[in-house]
């Protein structure tokens, strides 16, 4: 289906809207009119537009126009002029004095007293004989991935509503909304409700969901491209399916950045009929100026490895200085921390440079955002925490430090520098090492071609479905047949098999175990008429406490206290007794890897780990220049398949090297000379000795996650081949395995066959055996266990320590895997492993692609191409299941200091 061309009809916007546009000096944009037309034609639509295109207003215009046009006969007061001005309280949202709402003017006109309400005509309920129907009521639901965004959008909507004096009530509903207001919203809904996918799920699970949503005309889904890539998207899709049932007239508007497959994304917005695939109409906002993207042409020597881009610090600083406001994106929090510190160390001009990332305290982040909006900052070093959200002040430059990882991701980041659509965004890419130069080069080409690499639409996961099934039962009893059909109208679940559905319902009911002994503990049961219903009110309570799909790593609070040691120069520690200032939060697994006294960078400074008390990590200021433990989080997003392919093509095409910096070109030429530069479809394997070990390095270019999995599996195979592997390290491009066996010699003698080593059959038994003990798989399972409701993380009253939850799900995984390997939760976890932390699907595609195309080079020393990954050794954590080795090392120390423990070995 080609994107629909809109024919702007003059009457799409009422006069007072046209006057308002004129007053602001705007004229309605074509895509805004297109959406109005589609609303009039009663069609759902996907709007694809870059930042700054007036996307949000476009999404709300149809609603604003409809609500201002409704005649009193339809149950709404029409407001022609200021004569009919509503009270101020009607449009102001989220004001605390709004606790008990005054009657809505539009609903007082013809409202008979509600049978449900004690109030006098607060809601217009009309009996239709068999049922009660409402006039007015909730008209539009807006859903955003960030609650902060919902709040900001509400604020932004105030302007047109106030200036045109529209009789429209807008409210937000987030996790922070007080209980009293939530209750009121259910009884007296606003015209427009702004909320999140989790809150929608909660609303749908209440028994007055039919009452609340039957009047719904429109749902607006913001940042849809970001929502649909995660399990939150699955949850949202199931919520939409429910809404289509409750409000058959509801139409959807999706707002999205540019994606690779708009047709597929547009399926999300309309109910999928069985066996068919239908999409909403697509509107593409044009006219965005081409962004200007360059790679930093550094005067310094380009590093071989690492991600800090320290070599380019001075140049980054100069760029910040030369521009009004610069956003400096990096890929990980630790990089953000380090870069921020380094910039301040050289900040002789005292430029206002701030730090923003997801583990900083919320209040701290808000402060930075506000300063940013107020135009008070010259630079912000940030992570993906600023990828989404409302537009910030006058950002005139985006600097992306490190690998761009994906073309679409880069374009979205670049778009943050553009708040007026007709002005070109400017961006500078700063590669941190030589491989990243290649990645930056192909990313710039991709941006120029407007090539997108957003992931395809997800297949809905079963753990989210389980949560939804329980939510449905909490609302009203359901028939399995009906719910199965309803669920399949959601695009991600269109292909859901009946077996998977039934198993999920069984799981929700009594665990879905082959051993049927939990019937008496069932959470939902079928009644005589065959409908599933909740067995007791506690089940509802548990569901409501635990709704949602964001299972975060266990986070510990980091507090700054005065250290015991520290020579204490004239450290400005301030009054920091015990319980000191909260710096933010940190992943538990990072802290677990530390020993008291280790230093790391956090909150913009080097801190020393002092102690861990329950969920509080106490740290003190360290006076060291560098931190001992370098990183506390790898990059979250792996190199996209698309960019990887372009990098391989670039390597393959020697003529294209002309576009690369001299240093990089020389590096590649040297590689071609001493070894081989891998062809676009080849897998190159190099083997060489170094010190007393033998190395095998391969270059799949499939991202760190897939390489880690490959490393695990290859190590097992090499062990069987008696190559005595000791460890491996992976980066985005390559994998290096080292060991005691001389792999070159083994290959020469035919004792090690590379084709067999890389045979895709490793994804059979080897994978199974490894998954049994893989810590990553256990983390994946834990997420499924929490989302599906097997394990609760939140209880009424006290919160059970998440630490306990993590431990017990590992035990559950072991037992379940052994006794019921096809259990629905294990299936869900396996599906996640295909794309998540283990990236098995990508590995499998690669292994298939390179069959018969393995190029081996036996070298007498490390090759230029291998240097970057070799330098990661000792810098990155070495992965492996070698727990025994680690324990043995600790035991060794005991033997050394053997005295004092005579009881040993006697």
């Amino acid at each position, binding site marked *: 289906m080609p994107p629909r061309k809109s024919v702007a009809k003059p009457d799409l916007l009422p006069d007072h809207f046209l006057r308002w546009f004129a007053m602001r000096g705007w004229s309605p944009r074509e895509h805004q009119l297109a959406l109005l037309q589609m609303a009039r034609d009663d069609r759902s639509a996907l709007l694809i537009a870059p930042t700054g295109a007036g996307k949000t207003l476009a999404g709300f215009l149809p609603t604003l126009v409809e609500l201002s046009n409704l005649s009193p006969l339809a149950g709404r007061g029409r407001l022609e002029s200021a004569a009919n001005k509503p009270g101020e309280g009607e449009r102001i949202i989220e004001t605390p004095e709004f606790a008990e709402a005054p009657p809505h003017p539009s609903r007082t006109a013809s409202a008979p007293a509600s049978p449900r309400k004690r109030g006098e005509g607060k809601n217009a309920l009309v009996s239709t004989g068999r049922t009660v129907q409402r006039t007015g009521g909730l008209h539009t639901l807006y859903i955003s991935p960030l609650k902060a965004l919902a709040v900001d959008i509400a604020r932004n909507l105030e302007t047109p509503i106030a200036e045109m004096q529209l009789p429209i009530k807008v409210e937000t509903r987030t996790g922070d909304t007080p209980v009293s207001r939530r209750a009121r919203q259910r009884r007296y809904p606003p015209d427009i409700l702004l909320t999140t996918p989790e809150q929608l799920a909660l609303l749908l699970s209440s028994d007055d969901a039919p009452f609340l949503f039957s009047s719904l005309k429109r749902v607006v889904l913001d940042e849809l491209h970001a929502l649909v890539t995660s399990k939150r998207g699955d949850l949202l899709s199931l919520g939409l399916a429910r809404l289509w049932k409750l409000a058959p007239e509801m139409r959807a508007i999706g707002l999205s950045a540019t994606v690779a497959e708009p047709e597929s994304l547009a399926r999300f917005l309309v109910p999928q009929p069985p066996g068919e695939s239908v999409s909403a109409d697509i509107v593409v906002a044009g006219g965005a100026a081409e962004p200007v993207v360059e790679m930093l042409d550094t005067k310094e020597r380009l590093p071989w490895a690492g991600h800090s881009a320290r070599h380019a610090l001075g140049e980054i600083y100069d760029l910040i200085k030369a521009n009004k406001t610069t956003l400096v994106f990096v890929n990980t929090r630790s990089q953000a921390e380090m870069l921020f510190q380094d910039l301040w160390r050289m900040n002789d001009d005292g430029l206002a440079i701030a730090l923003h990332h997801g583990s900083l305290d919320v209040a701290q982040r808000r402060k930075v955002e506000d300063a940013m909006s107020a135009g008070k900052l010259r630079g912000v070093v940030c992570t993906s925490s600023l990828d989404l959200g409302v537009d910030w002040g006058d950002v005139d430059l985006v600097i992306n430090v490190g690998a761009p990882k994906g073309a679409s991701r880069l374009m979205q980041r670049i778009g943050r520098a553009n708040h007026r659509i007709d002005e070109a965004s400017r961006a500078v890419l700063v590669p941190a090492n030589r491989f990243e130069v290649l990645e930056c080069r192909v990313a710039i080409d991709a941006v120029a071609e407007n090539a997108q690499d957003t992931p395809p639409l997800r297949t809905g996961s079963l753990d989210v479905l389980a949560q939804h099934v329980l939510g449905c039962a909490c609302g009203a009893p359901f028939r399995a047949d009906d719910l199965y059909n309803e669920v399949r109208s959601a695009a991600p679940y269109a292909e859901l098999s009946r077996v998977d559905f039934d198993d999920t319902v069984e799981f929700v009911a009594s665990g879905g175990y082959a051993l049927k002994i939990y019937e008496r503990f069932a959470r939902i049961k079928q009644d005589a008429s065959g409908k599933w219903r909740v067995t007791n009110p506690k089940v509802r309570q548990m569901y409501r406490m635990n709704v949602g799909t964001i299972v975060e790593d266990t986070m510990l609070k980091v507090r700054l206290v005065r250290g015991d040691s520290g020579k204490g120069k004239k450290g400005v520690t301030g009054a920091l007794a015990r319980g000191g200032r909260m710096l933010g939060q940190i992943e538990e697994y990072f802290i677990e890897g530390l020993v008291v006294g280790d230093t790391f960078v956090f909150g913009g400074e080097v801190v020393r780990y002092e102690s861990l008390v329950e969920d509080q990590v106490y740290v003190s200021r360290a006076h060291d220049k560098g931190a001992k433990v370098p990183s506390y989080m790898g990059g979250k997003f792996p190199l996209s398949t698309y960019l990887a392919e372009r990098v391989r093509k670039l390597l393959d095409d020697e003529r294209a090297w002309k576009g690369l910096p001299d240093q990089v070109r020389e590096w590649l030429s040297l590689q071609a000379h001493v070894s081989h530069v891998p062809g676009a479809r080849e897998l190159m394997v190099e083997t060489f000795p170094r010190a007393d070990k033998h190395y095998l390095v391969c270059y799949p270019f499939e991202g760190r996650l897939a390489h880690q999995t490959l490393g695990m599996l290859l190590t097992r195979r090499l062990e069987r081949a008696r190559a005595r592997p000791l460890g491996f390290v992976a980066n985005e491009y390559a994998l290096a395995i080292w060991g005691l066996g001389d792999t070159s010699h083994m290959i020469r003698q035919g004792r090690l066959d590379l084709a067999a080593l890389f045979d895709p059959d490793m994804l059979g038994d080897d994978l199974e055996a490894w998954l049994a*003990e893989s810590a990553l798989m256990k983390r994946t399972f834990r997420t499924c266990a929490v989302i599906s409701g097997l394990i609760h993380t939140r209880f009424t009253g006290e919160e059970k320590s998440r630490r306990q939850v993590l431990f017990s799900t590992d035990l559950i995984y072991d037992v379940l895997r052994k006794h019921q390997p096809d259990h629905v939760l294990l299936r869900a976890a396996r599906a996640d492993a295909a794309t998540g932390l283990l990236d098995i699907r990508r590995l499998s595609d690669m292994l298939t692609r390179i069959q018969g195309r393995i190029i081996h080079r036996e070298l007498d020393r490390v090759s230029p191409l291998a240097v970057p990954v070799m330098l990661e050794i000792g810098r990155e954590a070495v992965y492996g299941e070698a727990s025994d080795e680690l324990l043995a090392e600790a035991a060794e120390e005991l033997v050394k200091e053997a005295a004092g423990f005579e009881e040993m070995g006697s």
Partner: protein
Amino acid sequence: MHAETITVDMSTVSIAGVTLAADLSGALYWEEQKLLVVSDLHLEKGSSYANRGVLLPPYDTIATLGRLGAVIARHDPRIVIALGDSFHDRDAHERLSPANREVLSALQMRRDWIWISGNHDPALPPDLGGTVAEEVAIGPITFRHEPTGAAGEIAGHLHPKARVSTRGRAVERRCFASDGTRAVMPAFGAYTGGLNIRDAAFARIFQTLGFVAHVLGDRRMHAIAASRCC
């Protein structure tokens, strides 16, 4: 595919002059007495949670009994002591499936079986087979559920586990904790969590950090100084 693969690996622990073998499974074996001790089986923990709405897989009892069967088969002990908290709650024994009850009876055949009472299972009925006792003393050794710190005591209750960190990576495993005079055994049950040996509860028993964690690795035992753990 689901065969038990427990390598026979043991490390020796001396308590009050008696030498015992700390088994990789988490059991303790006293060769001279042909006596096997396991602690904190927590049978039917899964169904106990299910009763409260958390539908854990109902396979923990069979898993625990399976591992117990394997270690019994390996040592063929004359006496088995279950060191308390053998059942997760007071009614847990009533929820034992007939099949699991039979497995248990088979394990009890041809040997003395002693159930030490624990805080989770203070009143075990006689029809479970074996003898119920508060504590058992054999030679210089006293077996009881809750550790008091007395010399010659072998206890359970605390579910000791040890954590070791090196170069940013941590490993955490169940362990025996012993200073040569007394010992605390790891929990044997499939769903049993653990308490870090650096917790104050262990300081009350051992007084100092001068004790050793005999850590259950993946394939072998490791004796690590408590002071080295974190």
